[in-house]
């Protein structure tokens, strides 16, 4: 038994490859917990960042600077009355949010946080990812249908039409990235002219191909990689029904979204699924174009010192966050009413600082690199999502579809063809 557990630790593969069920379950639990925490953090960040964009403060009361707001929201939603419309199809009504949730979470099976830090590494990882994330459309349609009211149905149909059309564009962009794994620019980027890559659909393989080719696919065959990344970045925002493509869920439009009839915990499952999907597609984007878990400039800035510099980043990040927390503590009003909040914030800052210090220790430092850089990049994407929401007006539905089919798809096909040509010719 113990052998079973420790034998995995000495192998250098993912639990899936090693066939180790126990560790696979451990990883699944870790990822599930991590994503859930990330969703709550994202909720908080969205409210705070949006507020600061709009020159206001956001939640400040519930916990210091609103840090406990997501927990309060979760408790509120949990204690709400569970209303099911009288004529609704009960089973479908119940299962729709679950399908969306499962579809969003199952994608994480193939997302690599490091060379061996993935639950498994299917050799058709990308295909799996594309297929599973499309299942959420099914959940959306089921939610609209089961509500037995024509406004949610119209909203669900719109939502599903939008998601399906942008998936095509996403697919084109993804295929361009996959093509790049097997094509080497001859002599480019410092890679020898005679080597050629083996194409791969596995997620870990794609990141490793970026490493071998000494270039992040974002910059490969410039500007093709960039354009493919751009297409994917726009399509992923539309895929997750976020601004500026959030007409199906907008409040000031006539047809309300597919989740109108849901309340309480069921609605929070939709939101959980939406945020999880956002993080999932961002992880895909990071893996395919941004070099996955590699630190910035892995090939141009090489050497011991650079490695050391970059390895200090995780610790510095947490120490920076702790410093911000302590600045917040200093700025808290000196009124006895705020004592508890001040102590809470100071405690939070202390915890962050402690984590930062731990991350400076060499053994931890080396191991945490992959996960840290991956998470940092995905975090950048999350901030971009919030930024879009604050800045852009909404697209009208027909304009939305026009962008998906008449703009992104032709450009995607063009990029694909050009990548193929360049890869063969060069």
């Amino acid at each position, binding site marked *: 038994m113990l052998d079973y557990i420790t034998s995995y630790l000495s192998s250098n593969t993912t639990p899936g490859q090693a066939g180790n069920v126990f560790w696979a379950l451990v990883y699944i639990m870790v990822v599930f917990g991590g994503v859930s925490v990330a969703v709550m953090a994202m909720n908080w960040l969205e409210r705070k960042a949006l507020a600061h964009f*709009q020159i206001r403060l956001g939640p400040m009361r519930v916990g210091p600077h609103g840090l406990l707001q997501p927990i309060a929201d979760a408790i509120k939603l949990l204690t709400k009355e569970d209303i099911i419309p009288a004529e609704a199809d009960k089973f479908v009504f119940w299962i729709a949010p679950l399908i969306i949730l499962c579809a969003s979470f199952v994608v994480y099976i193939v997302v690599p946080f490091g060379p061996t830090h993935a639950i498994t590494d299917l050799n058709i990882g990308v295909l799996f990812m594309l297929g599973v994330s499309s299942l959420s459309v099914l959940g959306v349609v089921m939610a609209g249908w089961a509500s037995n009211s024509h406004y949610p149905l119209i909203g669900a149909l719109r939502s599903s039409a939008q998601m399906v059309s942008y998936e095509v564009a996403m697919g084109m962009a993804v295929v361009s990235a996959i093509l790049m794994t097997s094509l080497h620019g001859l002599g480019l980027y410092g890679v020898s002219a005679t080597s050629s890559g083996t194409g791969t659909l596995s997620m870990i393989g794609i990141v490793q191909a970026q490493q071998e080719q000494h270039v992040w696919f974002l910059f490969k065959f410039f500007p093709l990689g960039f354009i493919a990344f751009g297409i994917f970045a726009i399509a992923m925002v539309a895929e997750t029904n976020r601004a500026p493509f959030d007409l199906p869920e907008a409040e*000031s439009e006539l047809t309300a979204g597919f989740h109108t009839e849901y309340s309480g915990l069921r609605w929070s499952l939709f939101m959980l699924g939406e945020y999880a999907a956002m993080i999932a597609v961002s992880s895909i984007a990071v893996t395919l174009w941004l070099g996955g878990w590699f630190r910035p400039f892995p090939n141009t800035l090489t050497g011991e010192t650079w490695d050391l510099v970059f390895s200090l980043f995780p610790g510095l990040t947490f120490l920076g966050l702790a410093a911000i927390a302590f600045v917040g503590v200093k700025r808290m009003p000196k009124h006895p009413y705020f004592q508890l909040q001040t102590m809470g914030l100071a405690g939070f800052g202390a915890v962050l600082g402690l984590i930062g210090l731990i991350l400076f220790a060499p053994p931890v430092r080396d191991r945490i690199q992959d996960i840290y850089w991956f998470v940092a990049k995905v975090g950048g994407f999350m901030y971009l999502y919030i930024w879009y929401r604050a800045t852009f007006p909404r697209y*009208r539905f027909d304009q939305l579809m026009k962008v998906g089919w008449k703009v992104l798809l032709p450009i995607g096909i063009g990029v694909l063809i050009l990548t193929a040509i360049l890869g063969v010719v060069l």
Partner: protein
Amino acid sequence: MSDLKTPDLKTADPTRFLSHLELDQPDKTFLDSNELVINMGPQHPATHGVLRVILKLDGEKVLGTECVIGYLHRGVEKIAENRTYTMFNPYVDRMDYVAAVSNGLGYCEAVEKLLNIEAPPRAKYIRVILTELNRLASHQLWLGTHALDIGAMTPLFYTFRDREEILKIFEKYCGARLTTHAFRIGGCQYETYEGFERDVIKFLDFVPPKIDEYEELLTTNRIWLERTKNVGVISRADAIALGVTGPVLRASGVKWDLRKAQPYAAYSDFDFEIPIGTNGDTYDRYSVRMEEMRQSLRIIRQAVERIPEGPIMAKVPKVMKPPVGEIYHSIEAPKGELGYFIVGDGSTQPYRIRVRPPSFVNLQALDVMVRGALVADVIAVIGTLDIVLGEVDR
């Protein structure tokens, strides 16, 4: 105004403006069963007040609309017959509560005309400054809510923050932020407070970068352009036939502004331009209002620099008894032509006061503007008409 050629309205058929909702014929069957009647109810996040719009849709396209108004009808004109002229002054603010100062200006000037007295020059300048500040505030509120309806949530907060500065000036001047009751018949009651000019000049320096900020967020934004260009188009002939006024008319290409055509209250002393648009679409109305904001700043600056000394109240009898007669006086409110038709009968109470509300007449044009557009455009067009239900319903 010689550049205005009247369009050929003899041959245009005004009945083309009528919508054929046929709501009172429920038994009439439609061959195309895609037609749907949807109600955008009195309570709605985007209808700027209690406005009910019944839409007849064919799929997504709007075939016709019918507006149901009157939810905010308070009988202001009836109340006027039971109050003296001075007592009615505060009621006037409550109609277009966003631009209360303009309402007061129109009313006071109309009664002054009936009494055949004129406000002293200093009072006129103070009136102009406050009215132009109010125009700016009204346009800022319009911009925030219009952008919010279209989906951009940030300009709302920016415009409201800047509007606070204007409301602070109002509060220092007359004690109220929104329904100001700033003017009296015959002039202004309150002398400008200590530091008024300094505050206004500080405001004039503070605001232009903010207007640039709003423009930066919206004007060249491709999504904004797609949502507003060619949306809610009203042609010049239609605009004149439907009697729309204000920025809506100017965006359709008619260069007409009551401040220049029939100047009132010292506007003839100032040098400013009237922005016009070309297409009559939502984007043009947006540009016209943004430019109007800048022109208002220009007027305020000139007024503050040249404000004359002198009395602020004309010699008005304590008990005001205008002679028997009628008068119609209108001003360029931020929403359009705001007119007061006052019938005096020699007593202290007016015999009849009729308020010609710009939003009421502009709202009529909604039907024409959204024919053939999509549902999402209806909300954009209601926003761009800049209606205030207090004024529509009185």
